[in-house]
């Protein structure tokens, strides 16, 4: 019972945080562009509008199940990320998982949806999927390397254990392992589909990319999972580098701070082409990662 309530609470929390964060993002973006921007609830409206469209077109069973898979993947991801530290609540099933599992779960959904995109038969969608996978290939290398530095630092893949090791500001991953944070920051933005790495679904690039054929309720599902997945990723990074959170307000605060940081980076830079993005990941963040490995792994072992 506890597990059920807890799971539903996690899903609700991540959804609410999701649309509020995105609403805030649109506001902030508008202000930066000297506009008023929509209300902070705008994402909720958009989402609900799509859920209540009276017509939804499918291209066959696989096209229908793709969004279901991605949504289930988002739920699963959320449930395997512990939201709070030292608490019985908002834990989901995170004690049955680990960091590597979460990283892979982040990809399960999009791959399931890629099937639906392929099933639609729209070449623009498949082109978008290919770009997405290409970007994934670029970003995952430094991202995983950064997380591996954390795993090595704590000698575990359990998010709980990593969180538990960071009590007090002085033990935050951000403080003890800042270079790992630097390594993952840009890939993290890309995994959030933020500018400058947002070429995949960009409307003017390939006709909305993977989502080209989705409309109506299916698009609503895709939007929902996107928001929830973003929250899951934010919380994951909060857990790994910012010591986790003991209650929901702290969690929102830390996640919001992190969100603000990534948003600012996103808003400043223009969009890169796919291959530029990949090349960038393999040069700058990965180079930083190699440096980090040399500094934190090789040098200590040689000097020892």
């Amino acid at each position: 019972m506890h597990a059920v309530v807890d799971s539903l609470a996690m899903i609700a929390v991540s959804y609410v945080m999701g649309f509020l964060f995105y609403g805030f993002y649109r506001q902030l973006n508008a202000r930066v562009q000297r506009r008023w921007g929509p209300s902070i609830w705008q994402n909720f409206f958009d989402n609900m509008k799509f859920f209540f469209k009276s017509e939804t077109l499918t291209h066959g069973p696989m096209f229908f199940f793709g969004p279901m898979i991605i949504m289930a993947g988002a739920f699963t991801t959320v449930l395997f990320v512990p939201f709070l530290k030292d608490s019985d609540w908002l834990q989901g099933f995170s004690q049955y998982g680990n960091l590597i599992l979460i990283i892979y779960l982040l990809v399960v959904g999009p791959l399931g949806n890629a099937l639906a995109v392929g099933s639609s038969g729209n070449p623009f969608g498949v082109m978008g999927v290919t770009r997405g996978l290409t970007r994934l290939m670029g970003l995952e290398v430094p991202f995983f390397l950064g997380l591996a530095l954390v795993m090595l630092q704590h000698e575990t893949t359990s998010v709980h254990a990593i969180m538990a090791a960071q009590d007090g500001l002085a033990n935050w991953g951000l403080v003890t392992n800042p270079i790992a944070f630097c390594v993952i920051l840009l890939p993290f933005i890309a995994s959030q589909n933020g500018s400058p790495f947002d070429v995949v679904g960009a409307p003017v690039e390939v006709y909305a990319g993977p989502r080209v054929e989705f409309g109506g309720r299916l698009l609503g599902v895709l939007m929902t999972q996107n928001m929830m997945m973003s929250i899951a990723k934010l919380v994951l990074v909060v857990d790994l580098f910012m010591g986790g959170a003991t209650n929901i307000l702290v969690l929102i605060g830390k996640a919001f701070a992190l969100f603000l940081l990534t948003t600012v980076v996103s808003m400043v830079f223009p969009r890169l082409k796919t291959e530029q993005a990949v090349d960038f990941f393999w040069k700058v963040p990965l180079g930083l990662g190699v440096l980090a490995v040399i500094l934190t792994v090789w040098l200590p072992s040689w000097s020892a």
Partner: protein
Amino acid sequence: MYHKTQCEGFQCEQAMLEVPDGVEAVREGVLDRLIAWMRQKSLFVLAYGTGCGAIEMRPLMTSRFDAERFGVIGAATPRQADVLIISGYLALKTLRRVIRSYEQMQEPKYVIALGSCTINGGMYWDSYNTVKQVDRYIPVDIYINGCMPRPEALIEGFVALQARIKNGEKGGYHHYRENIDWYKANQRKVLGDQVPPAYTYDWYHAGDVA
């Protein structure tokens, strides 16, 4: 001076289509009103630059006029869009694409016709290749006249559309479905065998008009 007393020609057909004033608002329950309220708060716009009126869309969407305040934002594909903006005159060539795109949009869907050209051909009234009256081919929910209308006018049009949605009025798409044969006959008249394929609308005949 020529004075119109009775309808003549296509105007009679037009009269047939016109919705009498003070239509019954389709209000059923709280949920429907809530849904309608959310719908009007979020309008995704498919804005093909079919004519010169498209030039007014850019200031509308960007900082100066900021349509996003009203929940109006661009969509890339017809599948995601709620509103189709016909931005100015339609040539026969673009008409075909517009029909195709309109039929691919998911209901509920609305059409805003922008500029005089969509009403009566405007300055192209005697062109052999320009569609003079758009609503013979697809149903138009809101006309915004002017040559070209200013962004403010566009915003007013959107607000008017939002009010109609909020009131739960029937959208043009109902018309289109109910009179599909008439629309198709008109389309076929000008496009010949260039009419978009039937598979995007033939489900209208299957009944189940939701």
